[in-house]
């Protein structure tokens, strides 16, 4: 086992860190729970600068705009972007579409779609959920029916994050040749301007805009299908880059944890000893430090197993499940320490830590990314431990 970066990886991390410190002033940093258009645009600017150095898709082949490095470098990028609180932009393209098409797409699809992502020229959204079905990604209402060489889509999707910014949509739809719940799902890439797609705003409680998306006789050429029919769920579930997304989430929360630790070391609200000297606070900080380390290791394990998948593929679920719990534990602990100040929002003159603690707590209420905790547990038990599939 090797828990360290290679010298080249360490150098990349150092250069990247210096670049981000220089390029991301504090007033442009992302704030948890507060997604603004200005931040999004700044995130795109940073992405363009990263892409110019071939750092955005650093772990992908040079012919597609990457730098030919490994998944580890891609993980370093995600963790650093998170830790430097760079506003999110382009992450669906980078962490979902690029690796999936790289693994399962045709050579024509690779030519068409990969390079623009690596160069930060396009934005993607992901439409993996629909009303009352949830992110176990087994839709039955949105159907893609074959019509000669085309597909015709009818139905709805919801929680399509970032759709108004997106040029393309990565979409799961039922393909009717296989009516069984789990395997009749196929993956498509669609231009969002295709006639028949209708986006209705569905604002989220962190300022992000998602959409209800309806499809009314949307006609796609057969070349929009990724891989083969009915394997879409498998393609999206086993994407090792899901662990890279988790590293990004870890990095951002870890940054706020470190800031909070500094705050506890420096602040003595009662005029006496610093918060961190209080035995109960010290104890909680140590527990959360342990939690952060565990989250980091589980996420990196999800990245490092790529190429030698150890059988059941649920490593990423361990990381995502742990992460969703740990960030909530941290936010609740920090809010307890901050008392009523923890309820102040960014913009209040007395808000501690820019409101990031309250923001993490609110964003933690969004449990649908990569599946809710209970779906992760189902997957770990049934796919990972081989326990029976339950009839629900």
């Amino acid at each position, binding site marked *: 086992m090797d828990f360290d970066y290679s010298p080249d990886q360490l150098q990349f991390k150092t250069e990247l860190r210096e670049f981000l410190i220089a390029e991301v002033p504090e007033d442009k940093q992302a704030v948890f729970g507060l997604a603004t258009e200005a931040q999004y645009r700044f995130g795109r600017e940073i992405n363009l600068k990263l892409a110019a150095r071939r750092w955005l898709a650093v772990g992908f082949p040079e012919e597609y705009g990457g730098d030919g490095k490994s998944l580890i470098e891609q993980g370093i990028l995600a963790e650093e972007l998170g830790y430097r609180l760079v506003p999110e932009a382009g992450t669906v393209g980078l962490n979902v579409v690029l690796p999936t098409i790289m693994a399962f797409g045709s050579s024509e699809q690779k030519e068409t779609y990969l390079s623009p992502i690596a160069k930060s020229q396009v934005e993607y959204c992901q439409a993996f959920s629909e009303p009352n079905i949830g992110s176990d990604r087994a839709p039955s209402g949105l159907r893609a029916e074959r019509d000669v060489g085309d597909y015709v889509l009818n139905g709805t999707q919801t929680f399509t994050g970032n759709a108004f910014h997106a040029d393309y949509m990565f979409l799961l739809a039922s393909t009717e040749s296989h009516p069984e719940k789990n395997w009749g799902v196929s993956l498509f890439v669609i231009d969002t301007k295709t006639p028949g797609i209708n986006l209705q705003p569905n604002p989220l409680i962190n300022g992000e805009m998602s959409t209800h998306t309806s499809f009314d006789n949307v006609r796609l050429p057969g070349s929009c299908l990724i891989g083969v029919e009915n394997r879409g769920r498998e393609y999206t579930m086993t994407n090792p880059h899901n662990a890279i997304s988790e590293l990004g989430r870890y990095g951002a929360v870890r940054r706020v944890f470190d800031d909070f630790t500094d705050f506890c070391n420096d602040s003595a609200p009662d005029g006496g000893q610093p918060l961190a000297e209080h035995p109960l606070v010290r104890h909680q900080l140590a527990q959360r430090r342990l939690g952060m380390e565990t989250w980091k290791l*589980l996420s990196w394990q999800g990245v490092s197993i790529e190429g030698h998948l150890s059988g059941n593929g649920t490593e990423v679920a361990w990381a995502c499940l742990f992460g969703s719990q740990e960030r909530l534990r941290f936010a609740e602990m920090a809010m307890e320490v901050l008392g009523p100040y923890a309820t102040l929002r960014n913009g209040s003159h007395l808000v501690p830590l820019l409101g990031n603690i309250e923001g993490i707590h609110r964003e933690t209420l969004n449990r649908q990314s990569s599946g809710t905790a209970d779906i992760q547990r189902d997957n770990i038990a049934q796919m990972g431990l081989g326990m029976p599939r*339950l009839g629900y």
Partner: protein
Amino acid sequence: MNFSLTSGQEILRTTAREFLSEECPTSLVRSAEESGDGHVAELWQNMARLGWLGIAMPERYGGAGRSLTDQAVLFEELGRALVPGPMITSSVLSAHIVLYGGTEQQKQNLLPGMIQGNLILTLARGERLETSSQSGGLILGGESSFVRHAGIANHIICATRPAIGAWPDTTLVLVDSQTDGVIMTAMESIANYPQYTVEFDDISLSNTAVLGEIAEGRVALEMAIQQATVVQCAETIGRCKKVLEMVVEYASSGGRFGRGSQSVQHRCADLKMALEGGRLLTYQAASRLDQGSPASEAIAMAKAQSGTLSRLATETGHSIFGAASFTVEHDMQLYSARAKIAEANLGDTEYHLDQMIAG
């Protein structure tokens, strides 16, 4: 960055699992517990022949010269099989104290015998062990509790502090357990092996009984404790893995839970996640020690998590097995007793959380 075992480690694991499934069934574990000394001489000799007692000891003393990471892989298997005997106490903790703290002559005298299975060592620590000098040697007095396996140990390493006004720091003293004035009282406990309160009745020792140099034992002791702490974490991982396997099998094979229960499955998933986190924390600590890089924080994190993992495995096992696991006949109770012992050994969760911050 690579979190997989090497092929050599995979072979070690497979070999150990196969050997222990044959040679260390739970019937043997139970009889060792009932015999009173928590030790099975034949199994001990077999493990010595396999090279396990000196797996991480240098080859010049008869060891296998392998890494702490390899030793952790082995101890996962020992934990899984509930192997009885003074493995951690003698072949990890005491052996490393001798290795780090002893003179060359002392290493030659002790390590080969220990590795071959002929010598058993244990450690006595505590605030109340004192040494003072006298002409031509020193005097050892005081008592120490929770001395593991003292009844079968040939030697006791005493970590002593100076009587007031004498030497500034820890002195390690090696005492033959048969010496007059060494008085042992067995402690009744939930441990599967005997622990003792050992009293040293102002024993006169020559200066050659000092392990290394007077007042220079602290570093060796701390380094050995670091090694043993990581090994204890690995043992816990193995034990908890086995608990998970047992409950998954039980909950998936019909019976009480029919075709399956989501709440039970979710408990198993939570234990699996905690196990994986613990495994990574443990091997990270082992890897840091193997590389000679700073490891204190990594070790403290591993052991702090190890305690909560032990508790979760116990709670999960007894919940899912239900009333059956409250019987002596059921193996689950063997695992839960050891879980508590392991949790308390070498610093519990609270202690190590505190160490993390102090570090």
